[in-house]
């Protein structure tokens, strides 16, 4: 094996320029793999971490996914064919019926915290500005158990909601849109016509753009007044010890209580779906780079094998077996692959370090100050494995042809 390696290296060094180009191909593939994976996975993990951190893990809403079965269907049984026409939904008052009991039942489960809310659309007016927002009525004590709202406050406090007659906590971006800050008194208009004067007692920043631009918190009782829905709760917000299990837990809750229960995965399905597409794009781009690198390796090994036909014949006459020849040429591809992989690791590391040093503000799904980068040896291992596999495959095709060459054919041609 050492002999084969020496021969491979010696032959490769004779084709230095082609060799270098092939190595660079692999280097770029591996380097960009690492950089893009760090960037993309960093962003995705950051988003998920923030969502898990800030948003409730499961929200039980006052909706049903399926309309309730009609009397005719119930009477006919599940195997009968029933066609109903002119169905109309019942116009019943919305809200979760028996919310208190459901909340108590959920709260008794291990690893689950519950907070009842009433959320609805309101208009906030300050001076000439009017902004639509989602008003969420909360119980500060319960809210502390299901989220980190208090930690995200940049100004004021949750307890101040109790201290002031009509206290309001606004998202930072929302406050900016209104031109309001702590202490500002503005008017709060519900869709049913109720208008209250409310005072801003706190401002929060979660980093999740959709929350910071459109959510205001008030005490549950005040929200019920503004939205004109006394004693109604239309959301139960749950926090789980195991956020990854939210999907299953939501399913079980919905099965048991009937109300639509959304896990954070479902609520953010659009963003998570984009992540899947992002990953697909990234891996196909990287794959394409490495395939091109593979062609480079194929080219260099083919060229060497072609040029070395005479040497292959002499090696065979000396007593080298097919597999010895195969090893010599396969190793050339692997040498290119290994060199490209190591250089690619260095390149990837440097790109990631450079991106990590950049500072800038962007506001997308979340608010960022620079790239969030996920650094893991896994990216190095995966890119290396991919590079080596590509190199081996690209070299194997010409190497096998070289190994199978008939020395007599070559000798007849040469002499």
């Amino acid at each position, binding site marked *: 094996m050492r*002999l084969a390696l020496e*021969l491979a290296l010696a032959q490769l060094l004779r084709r230095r320029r082609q060799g270098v180009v092939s190595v660079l191909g692999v280097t770029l593939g591996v380097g960009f793999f690492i950089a893009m994976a760090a960037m993309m996975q960093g962003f995705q993990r950051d988003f998920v971490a923030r969502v898990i951190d800030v948003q409730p893990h499961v929200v039980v809403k006052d909706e049903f996914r399926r309309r309730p079965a009609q009397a005719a269907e119930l009477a006919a049984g599940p195997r009968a064919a029933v066609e109903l026409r002119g169905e109309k939904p019942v116009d019943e008052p919305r809200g979760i019926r028996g919310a208190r009991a459901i909340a108590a039942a959920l709260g008794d489960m291990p690893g689950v915290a519950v907070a009842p809310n009433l959320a609805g659309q309101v208009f906030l007016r300050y001076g000439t500005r009017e902004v639509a927002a989602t008003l969420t009525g909360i119980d500060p004590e319960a809210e502390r158990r299901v989220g980190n709202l208090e930690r995200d406050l940049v100004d004021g406090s949750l307890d101040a909601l109790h201290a002031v007659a009509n206290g309001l906590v606004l998202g930072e971006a929302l406050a900016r849109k209104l031109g309001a800050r702590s202490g500002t008194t503005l008017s709060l208009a519900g869709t049913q016509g109720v208008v209250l004067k409310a005072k801003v007692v706190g401002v929060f920043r979660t980093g999740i753009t959709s929350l910071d631009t459109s959510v205001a918190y008030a005490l549950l009782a005040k929200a019920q007044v503004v939205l004109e829905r006394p004693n109604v709760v239309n959301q139960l917000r749950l926090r789980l010890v195991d956020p990854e299990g939210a999907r299953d837990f939501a399913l079980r809750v919905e099965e048991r209580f009937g109300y639509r229960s959304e896990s954070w995965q479902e609520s953010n399905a659009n963003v998570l779906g984009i992540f899947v597409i992002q990953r697909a794009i990234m891996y196909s781009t990287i794959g394409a780079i490495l395939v091109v690198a593979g062609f480079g390796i194929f080219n260099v090994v083919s060229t060497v094998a072609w040029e070395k036909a005479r040497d292959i014949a002499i090696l065979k006459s*000396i*007593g080298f077996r*097919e597999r010895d020849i195969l090893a010599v040429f396969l190793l050339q591809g692997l040498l290119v692959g290994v060199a490209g992989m190591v250089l690619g690791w260095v390149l990837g590391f440097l790109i990631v370090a450079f991106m990590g040093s950049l500072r800038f503000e962007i506001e997308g799904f979340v608010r960022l100050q620079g790239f969030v980068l996920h650094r893991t040896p896994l990216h190095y291992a995966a890119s290396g494995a991919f590079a080596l596999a590509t190199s081996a495959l690209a070299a194997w095709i010409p190497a096998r042809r070289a190994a199978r060459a008939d020395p007599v054919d070559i000798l007849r041609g040469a*002499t």
Partner: protein
Amino acid sequence: MSDRAPIVAARGVTRVLGGAVPATLVRDVDMEVAAGEFVAVTGPSGSGKSSLLYLLGLLDRPTRGRVLFDGVDTAGLGGDALAALRLARMGFVFQFHFLLPELGVLDNVALPMRRLGRLAAAGAEARALGLLARLGLADHARKSPDQLSGGQRQRVAIARALANDPVLILADEPTGNLDSASARLVFDVFASLAAEEGRAVVVVTHDEELARRATRRLRMVDGAIVPSGAPPAGTGAAGA
């Protein structure tokens, strides 16, 4: 012919090259070479000399007939077994020296030893140096092959052929590209390998003058060995 057991023997060997128009390269050849014999195969271009040599060297397989090496029919041996025989028991020299340009002179000579692995690296190097010295190339061991003259390269190739102490040496027009002085030198080496060391040597050449120095001459025409009746076996007919 020698009364010793032959190292290599052809029995009714025919080699037909397939294709649109099949060509018979070697036609029904019977011959054998014993240890200590120096056999020269002569004949015009295209008479099948080289093809016979490839068959004796187990690089090629006969279409019909058998090639026996050391009494064993090689038809039953696989590619790896044939490679092992070539490695340990044979040495090849070709018209063009065929040294590997990437390796130095010494490494070229040591290559078969390293492949065989019988000697450690230091031992292989010492033996390679000894072989080079024997061929008058001791001063050139550290050079690259392209720094040597044609005759010197061919002697390096002979040193490489001797690397694993083979019983059979096969040479295909080894002097074809050499001036007459170098050619004579190379033939002297072959003669002494047979006479003094008891190896079997088969040399394909079209140089009749040099061929006369062999212990036995075979003449080929159209792929067949023809009786060399008329010209009397000159020197060294008695053999070793």
